[in-house]
């Protein structure tokens, strides 16, 4: 197993939180297409060493925001600074310090695993011998060292994803941008990836992450924003958001009887009625749970922890998108 400190060879990053350096600074950032505003005045900052989450339903503007940050899409309004420089004027120097892992793997499927990384290193102008040694390290870091000679099309989905991530690290970026890195992965691969991200974070790499897995976001993110329809709904630490919007405890009832509905309304409890299922946000008041199980639905009533998924669904609604 590779020592984590060995992965980045050529530079020493300042571990978080030695001092607060702003890596991304978006101020009233907007992106408009002809008829449609994808990102509508979004403001947030990401500090060095942070793992920052960008959450939202499909079509919320996550990928558009990410594309503006690495200078793929020009922004239409507001301002956007990365490493303190405007992306519009300093895109080239900013991109040398960014690593991106796209939603699509965008790998060269006809050539080998090793060639994929070494050729990509060429785009950054990394000398060949350094590219070779970094490739060796990255393949080891992501457990692909035995596949280096295989063609990419012979890899499984999980291995391709790991390779795409390895490629995003070939320039030893100060900022790593991950657009839904774990979508479609099995639990084993997902946990291994989380582990790797934690290691990178420990080294001081700033990470911007989008994901649809709320469990992943609450586990990994220091701070996150939830966006919808191009606007930020909330910003904060996962734990704080959970206690603020849903409380630590949630009672789930299914099916719901009429008496319970009356009880919830009579006591003005914070709840969501989904028809055949009801969520009651009881904060820390577990006495309510005792009363409900005793008097209403003793069989089909559970008390569980509030989750980020509760927060997400409460804020963005439950209707289907797209």
């Amino acid at each position, binding site marked *: 197993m590779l020592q984590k400190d060995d992965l980045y060879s050529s530079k020493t990053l300042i571990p978080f939180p030695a001092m607060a350096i702003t890596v991304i600074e978006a101020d009233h950032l907007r992106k408009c297409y002809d008829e449609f505003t994808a990102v509508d005045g979004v403001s947030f900052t990401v500090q060095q060493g942070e793992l920052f989450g960008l959450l939202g339903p499909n079509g919320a503007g996550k990928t558009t925001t990410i*594309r503006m940050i*690495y*200078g*793929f*899409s*020009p922004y*239409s309004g507001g301002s956007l600074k990365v490493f303190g420089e405007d992306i*519009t004027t300093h*895109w*080239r*120097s900013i*991109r*040398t310090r*960014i*690593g*991106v892992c*796209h939603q*699509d793997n*965008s*790998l*060269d*499927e*006809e*050539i*080998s695993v090793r*060639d994929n990384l070494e*050729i*990509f290193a*060429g*785009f*950054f*102008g990394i000398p060949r011998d350094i590219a070779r040694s970094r490739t060796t390290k990255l393949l080891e870091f992501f457990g692909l060292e035995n596949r280096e000679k295989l063609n990419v099309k012979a890899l499984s989905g999980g291995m391709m994803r790991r390779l795409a991530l390895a*490629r995003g690290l070939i*320039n030893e970026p100060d900022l790593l941008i991950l657009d839904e890195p774990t979508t479609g992965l099995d639990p084993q691969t997902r946990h291994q990836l989380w582990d790797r991200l934690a290691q990178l974070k420990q080294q001081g790499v700033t990470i911007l992450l989008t994901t649809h897995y709320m469990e992943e976001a609450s586990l990994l993110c220091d701070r996150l924003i939830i966006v919808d329809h191009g606007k930020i709904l909330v910003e904060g630490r996962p734990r704080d958001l959970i206690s603020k919007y849903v409380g630590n405890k949630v009672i789930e009832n299914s099916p719901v009887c009429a008496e319970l509905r009356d009880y919830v309304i009579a006591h003005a409890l914070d709840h969501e009625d989904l028809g055949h299922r009801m969520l009651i946000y009881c904060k820390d008041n577990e006495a309510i749970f005792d009363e409900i199980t005793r008097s209403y639905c003793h069989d089909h009533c559970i008390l569980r922890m509030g989750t980020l998924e509760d927060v997400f669904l409460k804020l963005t609604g439950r209707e289907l998108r797209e």
Partner: protein
Amino acid sequence: MSKLYASLSWRLLRVWRRDWLVTRRSWLIGFLTPLLEPVLYIASLGFGFRLLIPEIQYEGQSLTYVVFMAPAIIATNIMYTAFMENSFSSFVRMYYQKTYDAIMATPLSVDEIIAGEIVWGATKSLMTATIMTAVLSVCGLVHYPTGLGIIPLAFLGGLLFGCIGMIFTGVVQSIEMFNLPIFLFITPMYLFSGTFFPLENLPDWARLIAWILPLTHLVTLARNLCLGTITLFQILIHGAYLIITIALLFPVALKVMRRRLIK
């Protein structure tokens, strides 16, 4: 804003290098075609046409059909190689493999990616044309030292047809739509650019149309280089046509691809 990430520098060679390294992995398939194609043509035209067309009159010379036809095989190959590389192959890289999206996260501009692709297409034309010329030389169909002129000509012609291919890549909606420019543009050119018969045989109006088509100029230069009858005047006139057309089409290729890629 559309000019935002558009700047051109030597970094385009990094894209060229990528294409070269990827192609090198499957070089056998890539280079078998230019090796065998001229052999097939010569077998067919040499043996099959010999009795039908014993001699052909070209610019005051009397030539066998194979001698007349051989340089046109090289010229059309220059056209097809670069056009296919920057239409079908570039489209696959752009649309299916999302290679350009990946490169656009590195310190390369859209212009450098597209220019690198076009220069690569021209390089591929150069390589295949060189192989074909070598094969035809063995058959004694190439006059030297003028025959060496095929090498720079292939690069120039490759740039021109690469630009044309890239312009279509910038505008087509799906990969099937490439059949349209091939049917309306490439195939007629293949047939009417002095490839299979001398342009002198055509009526004046048809000759005029042929003179507008880029392949005519490529064929004329290739033929006279192979025959050893090239004149300075021909080099200047046809060379100028190729260079001016490249100068006009290259910015168009960059523009349509910028519009397509920068969202």
